[in-house]
């Protein structure tokens, strides 16, 4: 396939052993970040780190720029750096470039509701979205459903961050040994370091490291996007090379697996619904992930969120350039071949950097991707730990847990969660992590009605929401199970025929539509039957408060603003 491409100035030379210079720079930058991670616990230090507000939300004190870095660090993960260009390289525009409208659409959507979520959480001391659902609907079961969905959806996401680090290490030439310990040792070390400073510094660690990460990433991408096109023959040549690839028919797949989709450089008539639904569905799902909500709630004021909605698109721009690197790699004739000798599109961006850049800059780029994995992995494990502590441990196991105990449980859970992700990466095929991540996206969108609609109205009945969630989860999982691809027999993709409309669309959005329909219909039924509605502990004005307003602090046992804890029975 590559032989047909116009000759590249420097064709790829994969498998040329360990890149010593790049690896050294990667290690040095990694060490700097590690020190910063440990020092972070002293930054904006509170009297005590022993509460979820401090450990898990950084004292709810982050201003506009820190929040910007944190949210950016959160949403643009190592996996984004690996997967988006890989999709552009391997499958083309529909699979890869939808990430651009997706990240553009995410911000107007969060502008609508995230400031409300911030206000209500600030007022009532909510740490997770399930906390909000619990308070709003007075429903433990709905809250449990939301928290389990979030927790389970995060697991493969954390695992994928480790896959991102692995991709970099593989291209740098580390980890090729047959000995499993030598092969996995670098990842094990990275993991141990990450676990240690997350444990000691909480959310402050990724907040500090996110600065370094983003500066490196911006630097690398901007240099890459200016330097590489001129090296491979200019943008026109790149788009021509990409177009030439569309003429090549896809390889037939093995029997029993799904057919390979042809490579496309634009969105054909059959894929238009898929493109739009993927963009909208992913944008709606993005801020339902517990780690996005953690980053939002850690900001110090309501306006911080809205201001961020207008400066976060800077990341969308970088993401678009990054996606285009997948196409630059096509023109450059990059051959992403793993240490096992098999072609692996996931390695395309690291391989492109190694081929085209001097070794020292390759090292910087590798560090950007590896550190880019640490920040989201830390935030995700903190978010998962907070969810477990608040909505499972405190709600169901130890209702009388003190804030210090909560912080302790959360710290330990963050370790367990990461250990689980590590096991996932070591014992299972990488394809599984990707499949589960796709499934996680479908699941997490099903929490949207309870959370977002709940921010505006309590009209939907809590049991109807629970039923809608359950039906959509089963439908989404079942649909995704049936999707074959050349790589896997199940969970091979996230688009399927939409019932009634008959076009190809994102399964998550179809499931979401079913979720809403079930919720609305059952709400009418349950209201007619006068089913108990539960107690709403929120008041309308709570949705508009800012940082200078007093807190009700249902959960906060350290009422430093002089307001006694709300004694209202839940």
């Amino acid at each position, binding site marked *: 396939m590559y032989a047909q491409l116009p000759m590249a100035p420097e064709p790829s030379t994969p498998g040329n052993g360990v890149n010593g210079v790049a690896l050294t720079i990667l290690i040095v930058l990694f060490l700097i970040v590690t020190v910063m991670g440990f020092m972070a616990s002293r930054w904006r230090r509170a009297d005590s780190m022993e509460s979820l507000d401090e450990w898990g939300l950084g004292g709810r004190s982050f201003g506009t720029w820190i929040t910007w870095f944190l949210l950016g660090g959160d949403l643009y993960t190592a996996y984004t750096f690996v997967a988006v260009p890989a999709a552009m390289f391997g499958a083309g525009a529909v699979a890869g470039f939808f990430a651009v409208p997706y990240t553009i659409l995410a911000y*107007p959507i969060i502008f609508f509701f995230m400031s409300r979520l911030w206000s209500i959480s600030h007022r009532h001391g909510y740490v997770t979205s399930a906390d909000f659902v619990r308070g709003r609907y007075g429903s433990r079961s709905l809250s449990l459903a939301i928290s389990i969905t979030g927790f389970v959806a995060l697991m493969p996401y954390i695992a994928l961050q480790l896959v991102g680090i692995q991709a970099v290490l593989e291209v740098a030439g580390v980890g090729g040994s047959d000995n499993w310990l030598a092969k996995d040792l670098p990842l094990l070390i990275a993991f141990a370091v990450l676990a240690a400073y997350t444990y000691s510094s909480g959310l402050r660690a990724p907040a500090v490291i996110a600065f370094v990460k983003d500066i490196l990433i911006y630097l690398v991408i901007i240099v890459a996007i200016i330097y590489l096109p001129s090296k491979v023959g200019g943008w026109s040549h790149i*788009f021509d090379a990409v177009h030439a690839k569309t003429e090549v028919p896809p390889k037939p797949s093995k029997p029993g697996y799904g057919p390979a989709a042809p490579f496309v450089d*634009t969105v054909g008539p059959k894929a238009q619904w898929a493109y739009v639904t993927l963009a909208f569905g992913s944008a709606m799902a993005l801020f339902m992930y517990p780690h996005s909500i953690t980053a939002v709630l850690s900001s110090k004021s309501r*306006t911080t969120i809205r201001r961020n909605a207008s400066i976060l698109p800077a990341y*969308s721009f970088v993401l678009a350039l990054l996606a285009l690197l997948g196409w630059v790699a096509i023109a450059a004739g990059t051959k992403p071949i793993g240490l096992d000798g098999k072609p692996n599109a996931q390695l395309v961006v690291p391989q492109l950097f190694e081929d085209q850049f001097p070794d020292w800059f390759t090292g910087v780029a590798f560090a950007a991707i590896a550190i880019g994995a640490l920040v989201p992995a830390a935030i995700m494990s903190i978010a998962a730990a907070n969810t477990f502590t608040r909505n499972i441990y405190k709600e169901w196991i130890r209702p009388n847990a003190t804030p210090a105990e909560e912080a302790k449980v959360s710290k330990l859970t963050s370790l367990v969660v990461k250990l689980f992700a590590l096991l996932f990466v070591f014992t299972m095929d990488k394809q599984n992590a990707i499949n589960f991540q796709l499934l996680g996206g479908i699941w997490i969108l099903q929490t949207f009605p309870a959370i977002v609609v709940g921010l505006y109205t309590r009209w939907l009945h809590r049991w109807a929401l629970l039923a809608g969630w359950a039906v959509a989860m089963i439908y989404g999982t079942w649909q995704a199970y049936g999707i074959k691809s050349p790589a896997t027999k199940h969970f091979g993709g996230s688009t399927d025929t939409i019932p009634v409309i008959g076009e190809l669309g994102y399964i998550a959005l179809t499931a979401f539509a079913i979720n809403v329909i079930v919720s609305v219909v059952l709400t009418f039924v349950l209201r007619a039957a006068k089913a108990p509605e539960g107690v709403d502990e929120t008041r309308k004005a709570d949705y508009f408060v800012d940082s200078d*307003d007093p807190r009700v602090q249902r959960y906060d046992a350290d009422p430093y603003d002089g307001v006694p804890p709300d004694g209202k029975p839940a």
Partner: protein
Amino acid sequence: MSDHENPDQAPPANTGLLWFAGILLLIPMLALTPVGWYAKKDPELWGFPFFVWYQLMWVFLCSACTMAAYSLVKKARPHVPMRTSASLDAEDDR
């Protein structure tokens, strides 16, 4: 006495401006929906197909829209701190 002291009511706001902000936020969504219209090669810009540069352009336009919406919303519903917490903490018997 302003309305915002009633905890069961939203603070007063200029609804017209809020609607305007909402429309501004809808514009990028509407602009990115007709894929069939923008999924084409021409007109090119500096060698970039229309499909690519149209979507890149919306990164900036969307940012402008949310920025404008931000200042509109701030104007439409300026934040007035709650005067007392006592009235808000009062139990309601719903």
